């Protein structure tokens, strides 16, 4: 296995090198290392090129001398490197030493796409390389926003980033968080200097990539400075950066260019423009039109609260004490700043026709022009701008509200909601300002004013004449429409910019609750249906009611309850509730969850006819269609759903449920398109990840649940994702919440309504499936070991039984643990897949987890894999860790900003420690001793823990793990025996009993 690391070389080149776990760490040698030695376990060029596959083609092979942490004459492993034998604990001091490694080097134009293309699939990457990818993304973003300036660097044309405001802050954050490993080839270069070089180089590459094929100037040559300018312009696009020009002309070009661009970043002391509203009561009757004012001030750019009004500046002769640190001629600075600002906002010039202008008086239209046009440009150019708080706030805009009333047929008593999409509702429109409805008279008065800003009930409102006219027309309408039309109108995206925004749709009864996103709280909870064996908690009954209600309306939903709140149970209860004749439900989930669903369905809804659609022998075409009609629940995986899309689409599904719905977050993948195209009357997406925070994911999942609700992907991105994620647009975020709210049910363990009936410790057995590779290894171990056990006795037999047990458990954990071959981890173990899913949710929620294993080597593999996968530090406590180091780990983990994942070997970490920062505990493999496991669990679940602790105990379905787990549950006596003896009791079983215990049951394997 290779871990690829990134370096930045002086001269603007990216270099990749890798550690290779197949190459052994050298024997430890005491003493000082020589000045330079070959790195003992760095990947050679062929291996490195192999790991990078296509990306290696554009690289140049080289080597680099790295400064690396070294202990006893050997470089230390990076945390991502997986070794079979965990490194022996070292007590010797760590120093820096120089090691030569083979590298692949990339020019900036190759480095940029390479860094952007690294996805989850490629080789394992070190944190440093991920960090460089983050810088590359920033460079592209700067270029796309035009925050770059063309310049000259010696004889090269270059696009440099212009960093102001939050961009400068982000660049500093990137520099401060730069992993030292990126500087290994340039140890004497400070992090800030190196990051500046990386960002400059990548910004230049990003601009050239964006300008691919663009020519700024023709090939005519020109003479003197003109020739230099032309050569420079040619060198600003394409790959050729250097250009030739006469030295004198080049000097002129450089100086003039720099002087021209000097003001781009703004001055340390800048002009600030503050819009002041007219006084609350107009002085003369209807003079509400006037009295706006933009006041001038000087402001320290690095300390915006330090502000001096223009009036004060004009009244002071010398320096100003408040800004003394920054300047001593405030009047001239203010004048120069105003002169510059007047280029961007020409109206300003007129205000400067007095001797000591302190502001500009504006009428209402002028104020609106300033708000709409002047202020954004001035702000973006680095001037200070202070606007009244109501501007850009949704409450200050005129919008329409739709009010609907459900009809009750005359003479009948509405017992229960029989609302369907075709039901008629009466509706009327009203116009409102934020939350306040407006009367027709008020509206007519407003229409007469013909100004873009009006004061209404003491508040200023932006009023668009076209929209107001549209609104007045809307008021004329009214009547009846169907629930379907109502939802379409009230909730779908609007594309017409001239239309009045729909601020809200209100209705009475259950429909109103749905629209307000309150349905779950107001619907009558639904009790356990007859076919359901189990007890639903109150919030689960409400969830069931919500799901049923959406279904009755023919709408899809996203059940996004936090992990541990029982999403599976709610879905099963919904299935049990349905009419047998309704038709089959298709459940699509990751391979790792199939076994879980199967078992939960058997436990909670034994009456359901469940079929798992997988394996090479699975039915296809008409055979499947026919079979499906006699089944209530078909379980399949995303992979099969994509592969058998045509077969699955032929079944008239009553319902399609997708579990771990973030699997289709990338809307363009085959899986996502296949799942979306399945015909169904009712669609439910289940996920524990907070989808509402990742808008592209939200779109893809909602497109499955309620196709078309969020509009097309491109429109959605432009109207919501970009404004919200990039520019922090609260208005858009609120609109999006209103539209999606009715269809997303997410409850947290911290909700007051939940916590009251939630136990403090939630234990769950997580059933994992074996991969085909795991299953064949497992089978081989069973065959081999049973044969040997059969022909042995006494102490030898005992030893063989325990060895067999260990090997089987290793096969259940991961093939690489059993084989000890240092092979790659991803995609080969059902447990690992499930662990990744759980930890993704834990990290997304900002929580922390403890991961227990009894195998030190597996802990090491997990640490490497998880730190590579998450890019976060993963702590690992095993028997070789000294006391001081252990205490330091515990302290760091308990700290709020500390690492979120902590792997512990059961022996080293099972007792004594206080790890209450975690509220998740995962037992990856089992000791079969509840007392030992509970003791480990209690590291998190103890005094000081304020949240409910979620305990996940992994069991491989159909294997010895599940069978022992069952035996312990059913036979209390056995449990007592185990507590005393660990796995010793196994050795007393007969060979026939062992065979039964070890044999792999069908259904344990899942083809992927």
């Amino acid at each position, binding site marked *: 296995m290779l871990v690829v690391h990134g370096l930045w070389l002086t001269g603007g080149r990216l270099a990749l090198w890798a550690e290779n776990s197949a190459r052994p760490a050298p024997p430890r040698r005491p003493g000082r290392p020589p000045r330079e030695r070959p790195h003992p376990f760095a990947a050679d060029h062929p291996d490195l090129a192999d790991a990078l596959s296509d990306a290696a083609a554009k690289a140049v092979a080289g080597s680099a001398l790295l400064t690396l942490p070294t202990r006893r004459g050997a470089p230390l492993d990076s945390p991502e490197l997986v070794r079979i034998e965990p490194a022996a604990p070292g007590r010797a001091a760590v120093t*820096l030493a120089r090691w030569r490694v083979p590298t692949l080097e990339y020019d900036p134009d190759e480095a940029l796409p390479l860094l952007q293309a690294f996805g989850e699939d490629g080789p394992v990457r070190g944190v440093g390389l991920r960090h460089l990818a*983050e810088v590359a993304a920033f460079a592209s973003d700067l270029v*796309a*926003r*035009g925050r*770059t300036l*063309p310049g000259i660097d010696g004889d090269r044309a270059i696009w440099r*980033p212009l960093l102001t*405001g*939050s961009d400068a802050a982000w*660049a*500093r*954050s990137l520099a*401060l968080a730069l992993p*030292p*490993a990126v500087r290994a080839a340039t*140890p004497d270069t*400070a992090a*800030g200097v190196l*990051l*500046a*070089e990386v960002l400059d180089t990548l910004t230049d590459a990003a601009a050239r990539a964006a*300008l691919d094929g663009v020519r*700024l100037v023709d090939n005519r040559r020109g003479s*003197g*400075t003109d020739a230099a*300018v032309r050569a420079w312009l040619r060198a600003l696009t394409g790959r050729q950066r250097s250009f030739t020009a006469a030295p004198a002309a080049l*000097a002129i070009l*450089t*100086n*003039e260019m*720099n002087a021209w*661009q*000097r003001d*781009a*970043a703004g001055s340390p002391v800048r002009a600030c423009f503050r819009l002041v509203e007219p006084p609350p009561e107009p002085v003369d009757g209807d003079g509400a039109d006037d009295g706006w004012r933009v006041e001038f001030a000087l402001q320290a750019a690095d300390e915006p609260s330090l502000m001096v009004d223009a009036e004060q500046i004009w009244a*002071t*002769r010398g320096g100003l004490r408040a800004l003394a640190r920054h300047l*001593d*001629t405030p009047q*001239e600075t203010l*004048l*120069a700043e*105003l002169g510059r600002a007047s*280029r*961007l906002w020409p109206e300003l010039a007129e205000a*400067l026709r*007095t*001797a*000591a202008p302190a502001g500009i008086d504006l009428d209402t239209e002028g104020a609106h022009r300033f708000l709409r046009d002047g202020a*954004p440009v001035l*702000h973006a*150019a680095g001037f200070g701008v202070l606007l009244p708080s109501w501007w850009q706030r949704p409450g200050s805009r005129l919008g329409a509200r739709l009010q609907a009333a459900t009809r009750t047929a005359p003479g009948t008593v509405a017992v229960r909601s029989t609302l369907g999409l075709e039901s008629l509702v009466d509706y009327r429109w009203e116009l409102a300002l934020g939350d306040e409805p407006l009367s027709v008279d008020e509206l007519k008065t407003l229409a007469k004013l013909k100004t873009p800003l009006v004061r209404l009930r003491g508040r200023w409102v932006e009023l668009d004449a076209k929209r107001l006219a549209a609104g007045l027309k809307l008021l004329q309408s009214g009547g009846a429409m169907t629930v379907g039309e109502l939802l379409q109108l009230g909730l779908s995206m609007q594309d017409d910019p001239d239309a009045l925004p729909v601020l809200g749709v209100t209705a009475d009864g259950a429909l109103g609750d749905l629209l307000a996103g309150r349905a779950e709280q107001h619907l009558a909870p639904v009790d356990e249906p007859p076919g359901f064996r189990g007890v639903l908690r109150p919030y689960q009954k409400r969830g069931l009611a919500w799901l049923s209600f959406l279904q009755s309306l023919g709408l899809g939903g996203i059940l996004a309850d936090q992990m541990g709140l029982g999403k599976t149970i709610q879905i099963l209860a919904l299935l049990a509730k349905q009419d047998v004749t309704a038709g089959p439900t298709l459940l699509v989930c990751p391979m790792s969850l199939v076994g879980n669903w199967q078992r939960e369905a058997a436990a909670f809804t034994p009456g359901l006819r469940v079929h798992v659609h997988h394996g090479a022998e699975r039915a296809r075409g008409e055979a499947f269609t026919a079979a499906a009609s006699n089944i209530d629940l078909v379980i399949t995986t995303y992979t099969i759903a994509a592969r058998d899309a045509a077969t699955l689409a032929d079944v008239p599904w009553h319902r399609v449920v997708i579990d771990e719905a973030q699997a289709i977050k990338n809307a363009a993948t085959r899986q996502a398109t296949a799942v979306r195209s399945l015909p169904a009357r009712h669609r439910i997406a289940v996920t524990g990840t907070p989808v509402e925070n990742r808008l592209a994911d939200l779109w893809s999942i909602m497109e499955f649940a309620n196709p078309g609700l969020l509009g097309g*992907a*491109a429109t959605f*991105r432009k109207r919501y994702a*970009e404004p919200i994620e*990039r*520019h*922090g647009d609260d208005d858009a975020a609120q609109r999006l919440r209103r539209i999606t709210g009715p269809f997303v049910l997410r409850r947290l363990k911290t909700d007051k309504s939940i916590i009251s009936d939630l136990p403090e410790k939630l234990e769950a057995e997580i059933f994992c499936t074996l991969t085909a590779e795991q299953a064949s290894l497992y089978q081989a171990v069973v065959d081999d070991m049973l044969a040997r056990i059969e022909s042995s006795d006494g102490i030898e037999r005992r030893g063989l039984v325990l060895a067999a047990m260990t090997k089987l458990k290793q096969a259940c954990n991961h093939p690489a643990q059993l084989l000890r071959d240092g092979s790659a981890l991803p995609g080969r173990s059902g447990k690992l897949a499930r662990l990744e899913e759980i930890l993704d949710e834990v990290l997304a929620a900002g929580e922390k987890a403890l991961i227990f294993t009894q195998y030190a080597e597996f802990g090491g593999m997990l640490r490497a894999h998880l730190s590579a996968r998450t890019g976060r530090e993963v702590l690992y406590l095993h028997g070789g860790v000294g006391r001081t180091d252990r205490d330091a780990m515990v302290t760091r983990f308990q700290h709020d900003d500390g690492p979120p994942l902590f792997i512990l070997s059961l022996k080293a970490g099972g007792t004594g420690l206080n790890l209450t920062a975690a509220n998740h505990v995962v037992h990856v493999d089992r000791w079969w001793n509840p007392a030992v496991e509970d003791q480990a669990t209690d590291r998190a679940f103890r005094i000081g823990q304020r949240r409910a602790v979620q305990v996940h105990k992994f069991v491989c379905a159909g294997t010895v793990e599940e069978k022992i787990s069952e035996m312990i549950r059913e036979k209390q006596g056995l449990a007592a025996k185990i507590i005393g003896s660990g796995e010793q009791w196994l050795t007393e079983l007969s060979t026939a009993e062992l065979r039964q215990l070890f044999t792999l049951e069908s259904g344990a394997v899942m083809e992927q």
Partner: protein
Amino acid sequence: MSFPDYDRPRRVEGGLRARSTRGPIGRSWWSRRFLDVLESFALGTRLTRGRSYARAGQVLSLDIAPGTVTAVVQGSRATPYRVAVGLPPFPEPVWARIEQFLADQALYSARLLAGDLPSELEQVFAQAGAPLFPAQISELDLRCNCPDFAVPCKHLAATFYLLAEAFDADPFQILHWRGRDRERLLMRLRALRTGEEVDDTPSGHREDSAASAGDATADRMGGATAAASGAALALADLPAAPLAEAVDRFWLPPVPLPARTPTLATAPDLLLRQLGPPPASIGGPGLLERLRRAYENLRAEPLP
């Protein structure tokens, strides 16, 4: 016998070179206004040669003082010629009137300090009875100690061109020639604004500070300038973290990367609008248009 006037001029190292190397010299209306006076005389080859002198760096020095511009121009003879362009400075009462006009409207100072000469300024001077630009060449006292009988000679013409460029770079220089240097003018305007007594003895400190205040143009005249962009500007003062202090967290970020704060939505060509056209010497508005094409292409189309 030799005709030194028609000989090639001696090559000069380190002379003042016109920064424009092609086409007309003078980008702004004010330097054009000034050169128009010279060019209206249609001096033919002398004008052309003067321009190439200016571009070749034959002018060794240029000094602007109230009433007189003096220059040293290297011709074909060993000793450079001394050139002087005289224009009577405005008398104090005229300046007092002008200053009152200027002080009454902050716009003039604002534009001047931002590097522009507002076009109305010409009317202000005319109103005060003191035209800013000479109407005819005869108003100028032109001197050159070269043997050429014609006035203006090519040395004078070269001086004119460099003078126009100096005005381009810093419009305060015109006013200086007409009798008010930048520091004194700013000080008097400040005094008029605040209604205080004019302190006419320029103190060294105040001159320094006035020269540095918001001055975008001061060192355009010479010396290497630093780039106005580049990540190093924002990352200059970060604490140095030597590698040796990071051995225990070598592979990981020293501090976690915080969440990124939102950025402003801006039009991609905002920077070009903010900067205005570059100097004519490097392409002026034409260059701006070419760069605008580049900026239009920078904006990535949102992915579907």
